[in-house]
């Protein structure tokens, strides 16, 4: 795909003896949304950290906006440029904001660093971003402690968008939110993508949320990609046994939880 905004090729990460990520390749088109699905230990967050530059790949290439970012940035300027290309929003909205900084100041700080807007324009842009994620003026002036989890997560998204990234990595960004707030944030994400053309790498374990937000999906297990394809297709007709297991583990109408690994234990009990 020539219009890929993000391309990952043969990515590998080894921590000591443990292989966390093995031969992971994918590409994310402009304004696209790609889900990375997997359980704990699947390597999905490590992939995200390597793309942002928080971890250095053992092998493989990460290309964002046509530029290689597999090696650490050599200058502050280069780091800032990379920051302007890829931003990340983490799961815990309580841990990712400075408790003494108002949301407006947090967003303004990013604008000062990443744009050449003057003071007045920056203020206008803060208001625009607040509007985009659905926060009012009072909330933007409040301390994070006074905001709910959903509001904080919207601040984190607004702050990430302030750098005008082409790629936004969302790492389990709605997992900690209440159902009704989660729906609000998911709608915000859909609107933001439509209006700004930012591409999403959406890391999640929640298949229903993935269906709502993404176009394509890769399924990871033990550091490798086991299945990939359009989200609807993969979820409706999963081919890999692991994807099927994931799909079958989601509670829904008529769902009955089943024992898997423990079948042996049960048999042992019955034969005793």
């Amino acid at each position, binding site marked *: 795909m020539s219009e890929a905004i993000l391309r990952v090729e043969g990515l590998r990460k080894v921590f000591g003896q443990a292989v966390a990520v093995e031969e992971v390749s994918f590409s994310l088109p402009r304004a696209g949304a790609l889900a990375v699905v997997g359980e704990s230990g699947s390597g999905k967050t490590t992939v995200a950290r390597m793309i942002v530059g928080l971890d250095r790949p053992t092998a493989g290439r990460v290309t964002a906006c046509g530029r290689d970012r597999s090696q650490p940035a050599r200058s502050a300027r280069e780091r800032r440029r990379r920051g302007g290309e890829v931003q990340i929003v983490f799961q815990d909205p309580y841990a990712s904001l400075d408790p003494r900084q108002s949301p407006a100041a947090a967003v303004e700080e990013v604008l000062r660093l990443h744009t050449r807007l003057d003071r007045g324009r920056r203020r206008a842009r803060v208001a625009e971003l607040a509007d985009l994620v659905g926060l009012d003026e009072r909330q933007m002036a409040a301390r994070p402690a006074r905001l709910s989890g959903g509001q904080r997560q919207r601040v984190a998204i607004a702050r990430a968008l302030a750098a005008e990234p082409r790629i936004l990595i969302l790492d389990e960004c709605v997992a900690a939110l209440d159902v*009704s707030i989660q729906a609000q944030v998911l709608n915000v994400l859909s609107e933001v993508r439509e209006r700004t053309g930012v591409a999403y790498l959406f890391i999640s374990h929640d298949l229903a949320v993935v269906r709502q937000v993404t176009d394509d999906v890769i399924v990871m297990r033990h550091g490798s990609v086991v299945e990939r394809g359009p989200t609807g297709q993969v979820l409706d007709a999963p081919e890999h046994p692991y994807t099927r297991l994931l799909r079958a583990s989601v509670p829904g109408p008529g769902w009955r939880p089943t024992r898997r690994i423990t079948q042996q234990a049960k048999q042992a009990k019955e034969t005793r």
Partner: protein
Amino acid sequence: MSNPFGNRTSDLLDISGLTVALPLGGRHRTVLSDVSLRVGAGEAVGLVGESGSGKSMTARSIVRLLPAGAHTEGSIRLGGADVAALRGPALRDLRRRVPMVFQDPRAHINPVRTIGDFLTEALRAHSRTPRRAGQERAVRMLEEVGVADGRRRLRQYPHELSGGLLQRVMIAAALLTEPHLLLADEPTTALDVTTQAEVMAILDELRRERGLAMLFITHDLELAAAVCDRTAVMYAGRVMEVRASDLLHQHPLHPYTAALTAARPCLDRRAERLVTTAGRPLSAFEAPDGCPFATRCAHVRQRCHDTRPGLRPLAGGQVACVRAEELHQERAVPHE
């Protein structure tokens, strides 16, 4: 005390008009308001709600694990006995008969004691089971919850076990004391989906085998529907609706339940936009005087602000909404 909603005498747990206020920021604030809920012997009841809805506080009230300084009104009867009157050994006995499994097992297990110590402590303290016999029982119980190699596990420490394994150890510990009622507070929320399915299967199976009743607290309506006979939906410290789980999920009576169901994305199709409710979930002390959901409800009328609706019977369940009958009728007639 007579019960306006039925005359079943087999109720194991009967919570009636429970109101709890906790000292927060220098004054007492209501966190539960007039909660009434029953759990029959062997019955699984789901308690569903968002943060601050009071679902965990309800469970904690049952075993008297509320924070210090809590003011409590109303009554909680367990097997006919008034929980508030229990003292000393009787209270310890209650907690043994009604064990609780929490969301984060790591926060509720002593990290410097072995799994074996943890599992056999209650047995040795309560029933004076000899050490070796206690260990035998612990190993058998671990096997039942799907933990193989129990003898080795008994010698291990909590940090050596994964979250899924540790939660199974917690369930084993809860079942070892031969309880009547299990309080499960989001026991699978911190687990991976495939592990969740397995832990739920184990809970469900062992519960049915033993005729054990369960109060299952979760934020996940669909999970509650899958494993519970009835589900109660809480909002702002109040019970909004109680019904058979499948009915509640498919044809919610209360606008709040309907909003919860609509907000959750669907695994089978993508919605153009998710149906959202403005605002955020409220705590009991923040809720308005009338219906606590009135400020966010799409079906609100003036009378919703005027009076606070109590639970009343409708369509085989109970609902706390003044417009429930009309809305129920409207939904029965398909819209064009």
